[in-house]
């Protein structure tokens, strides 16, 4: 009998696909339950992007253009871990975000806020063997969206991780601690209470760089392995 390599998430860890307060979900969420698959080689392998060359400055979003972007410079760092607290070594972390004014460098973003020619908003980094990663960026602004009357997204940074396997793929969003907009955001609140709080970074005085930038810590936890790995 097959034993899964990666533990299956308990209920309440992820948002339901259908979260009606987020008005894009009703037409974009499957109505039938996903069929449970045993984890085969297709699921326990996955892209590690080992051959991908990541430049030394790709994790510094303030130095990707000719000049310095406007806004509050911040450090965002943390570790990529599994549920047992083990590091996910060499994990590729990708981020993207809007600028300090709340505008994305994207043709579809028509928010009436200025683009910053010195801020592109995308970065990537390959974590160390201890799972640690770090980005230097600008604190993103809040911006309005048309989900409901007077809807505003809380400031957030998008994160994309592959982890060790196809089964561990994760795209998420990091928020800032105690943002008053979180209480009104149907995307953040799509995650059940008790789990959604993990999407808030922690202010980190230890990693804050004197005279230079505040720091936030955001550890990312991917699915852990079962005790006895499947042998093929």
């Amino acid at each position: 009998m097959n034993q899964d390599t990666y533990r299956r998430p308990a209920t309440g860890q992820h948002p339901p696909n259908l979260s009606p307060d987020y008005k894009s979900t009703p037409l974009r969420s499957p109505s039938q339950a996903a069929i449970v698959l045993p984890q085969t080689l297709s699921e326990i392998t996955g892209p590690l992007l080992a051959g991908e060359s990541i430049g030394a400055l790709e994790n510094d979003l303030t130095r990707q253009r000719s000049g310095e972007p406007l806004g509050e410079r911040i450090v965002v760092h943390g570790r990529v871990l599994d549920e047992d607290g083990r590091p996910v070594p060499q994990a590729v972390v990708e981020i993207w975000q809007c600028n300090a004014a709340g505008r994305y460098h994207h043709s579809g973003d028509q928010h009436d806020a200025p683009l910053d020619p010195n801020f592109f908003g995308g970065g990537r980094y390959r974590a160390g063997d201890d799972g640690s990663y770090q980005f230097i960026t600008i604190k993103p602004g809040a911006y309005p969206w048309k989900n409901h009357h007077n809807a505003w997204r809380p400031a957030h940074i998008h994160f994309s991780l592959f982890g060790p396997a196809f089964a561990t793929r994760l795209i998420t969003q990091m928020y800032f601690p105690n943002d008053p907009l979180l209480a009104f955001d149907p995307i953040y609140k799509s995650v059940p209470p008790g789990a959604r709080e993990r999407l808030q970074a922690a202010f980190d005085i230890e990693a804050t760089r004197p005279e230079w930038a505040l720091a936030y810590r955001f550890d990312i936890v991917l699915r852990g392995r079962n005790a006895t790995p499947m042998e093929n």
Partner: protein
Amino acid sequence: MSSGLTPSQTIGPFYWGTLVNSCRADLAPPGVAGERIELVLSLHDAEGALVSDGLIEIWQANSHGRYNHPDDRRNLPLDPGFEGFGRASTDAKGEARFATVRPGRVPWPDGGMQAAHVNLSIFARGVLNRLATRLYFDGDPALGEDPVLKRVDSKRRASLIARRDPAGAWRLPVHLGGARETVFFDL
């Protein structure tokens, strides 16, 4: 010690361009072994409308049926230059295209082989969790013995099977909901 999982959130509409390498649609440079194929995946919402702001990723074995990953320890050839990962945004027609090679078969844990398939991840605004599905190939004689397809109601199996268009590309519509809803998998 056990830490809580980081919850999933939507990719949103604005990843294009800022998600570095948001297009990696040609997986097989010259020299990679195998039958060259083109995949055309179209993305549709529950009312059939095209989804033009989605992102589709693929993960597959090489033509020998070997995944480029340390947990695939079988003694089968790896192709230098072929990782098996692709990523492409859907365009104004709701389509994402990949140029790759037809994957070989990989084993089923309890014995036997799976039919050749490509693993798909679907992301889009309004999609809060990665949706995982598979692409199989119409006409493959192994479809009837595939252990995954056997778990799918026969009326829904067609949602997983790409068909060749007149130009030779393999086409698979992915429906996020509605009468033709695609079968998604819990991995």
